[in-house]
């Protein structure tokens, strides 16, 4: 992240150059999303069909990675059970920033058909990790996957990297001061 540090210092307050740089960085991130496929249940099969020739998920520039370290977003496809929940959390924490989460299907959105009597089903993956895009359906159709992917790209494209960094720095500095005081 040394590149970013050098970039935001001289242009305090932003500007055209910075805006363009930001656009470029966002473009890179949104067009090249490598994903960790967290295949859990039925939706994973539909996602396999999505990956296959007919729908070709790689058109969006996505590449499946099997190691969470190299993934940009995690695709939670299926029912999250309590036994699995802690593993999802660990894998999410292993991913490198910036990272995103797509929750696929009713089960990982809200527990789905298992919401009432599922004593071993976590009612929504958003109870343990932050979710960026929800794809509804049981299982979602491939078109829904496409829409979800486009929504994620849209979200990444709208991110304000430099403002966010400034805000974080501000928070960090106030935290330091409060630490000193105490």
């Amino acid at each position, binding site marked *: 992240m040394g590149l970013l540090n050098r970039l935001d210092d001289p242009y305090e307050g932003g500007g055209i150059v910075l805006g363009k740089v930001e656009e470029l960085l966002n473009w890179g991130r949104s067009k090249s999303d490598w994903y960790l496929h*967290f*295949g*859990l*249940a*039925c939706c*994973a*099969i*539909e996602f*396999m*069909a999505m990956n*296959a*020739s*007919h729908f070709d998920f790689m058109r969006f520039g996505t590449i499946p990675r*099997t190691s969470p370290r190299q993934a940009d977003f995690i695709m939670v496809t*299926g*029912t999250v*059970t309590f*036994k*699995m929940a802690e*593993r999802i959390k660990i*894998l999410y924490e292993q991913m490198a920033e910036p990272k995103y989460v797509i929750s696929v299907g009713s089960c990982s959105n809200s527990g789905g*058909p*298992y919401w*009432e*009597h*599922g*004593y*071993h*089903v976590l009612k929504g993956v958003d109870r343990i990790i932050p979710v960026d895009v929800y794809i509804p359906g*049981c*299982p979602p*159709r491939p078109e829904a996957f496409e829409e979800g992917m486009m929504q994620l790209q849209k979200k990444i494209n709208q991110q304000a990297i430099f403002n966010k960094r400034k805000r974080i720095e501000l928070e960090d500095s106030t935290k330091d001061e409060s630490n000193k005081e105490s």
Partner: protein
Amino acid sequence: MGEIKRMDLEYSQLDSDRMRINVGPQHPSTHGVLRLEVEVDGEIVTEVVPHLGYLHRSFEKHCEKLNYQQIIPFIDRMDYISAMNNEWPYVMALEKMLDIKVPEKVEYIRVIVAELNRIANHQIAVATFGMDAGAFTPFLYYFRDREAIISILERLSGARLLYNYFRVGGMAADIYPGFKDDCLNVVKQVRKTNAEIMKLLIHNSIFIKRSANVGILTPEVAINYACSGPVLRGSGVAHDLRRDEPYSVYDRFDFEIPVGKGDVGVVGDCWNRNIVRVHEMEQSCRIIEQALAQMPETGDVKAMIPKRIKLPKGEVYMRTENPKGDLGFYIVSNGTDKPERMKARGTSFVNLSVIPEISKGYMFADLILILGSIDIVLGEVDR
């Protein structure tokens, strides 16, 4: 090739440290969320301990809380690759208890959709098995063909994967015009692709080297572990409920039961388990062709569907031939509209239990192939 090659465990006396590796629950080739705790000595597997339950969705609890019609969608979500086949034993069990004779046309529709789904299931099984061996391209060829089957089933039922199409005493909807032509086109395409995959993957010498003589399951062990489906037939036991206990209209069709013959490798190894699936696709094609020819043109598929299902007191165990093996439902009724207890005998659950037995002494890479050749679906293992 004939003799059984098992890695010589003698040189473990070299006293190297053993390493315990966790394969799963999130791993590219556990076909879901299975976790295998593997102890390896260098590259050789010395112990496998499966840990299940990462997809335990409380299926049996739901059955006790819901009424009989509402259970069908949950059954779809058990073995989600072959949902049509899953629904069948359940509705048959209820029809047996209610003493319903379903119309002839319904029986034929059931046979056709079940066989179509069997083809789709085996396509995934063979494709992912190839992928475990590192061949990615056959996977996509099979998925291309599977799309055609999926679209037929979608036009029938309205869903791509989890159909909810069977009803007690009938079907949710009648077939659409042009259904026969679509099925015949699929049959044609399946045969064409199978011929191609035979050359590209099944008889590829690297693939044979990898999968033949690996993970040998003898018939005695297979029966003792109550294996069924292609896993049992790959070991040379011609056990197929469609012929042994003909249900529905299966006694009217002419088809063979492919078993592992050991053309390559020995009977009961991964290659033979896999080839059984490829041959079964061909047999399913034959059944579909005959069923399409025999199917009556007229008939109301919804005529026998009861308004409200209330079972008499009693219990029934019904099993049919799922693509993965015998799928059984044990239903205990207490006379109300909800079952007292329902137990699903998951095919994959039983077939998977054999893995610690057949994977010891092989290489770590073989373990992945053995797992792939058993063709499990975790939804059915954990329920």
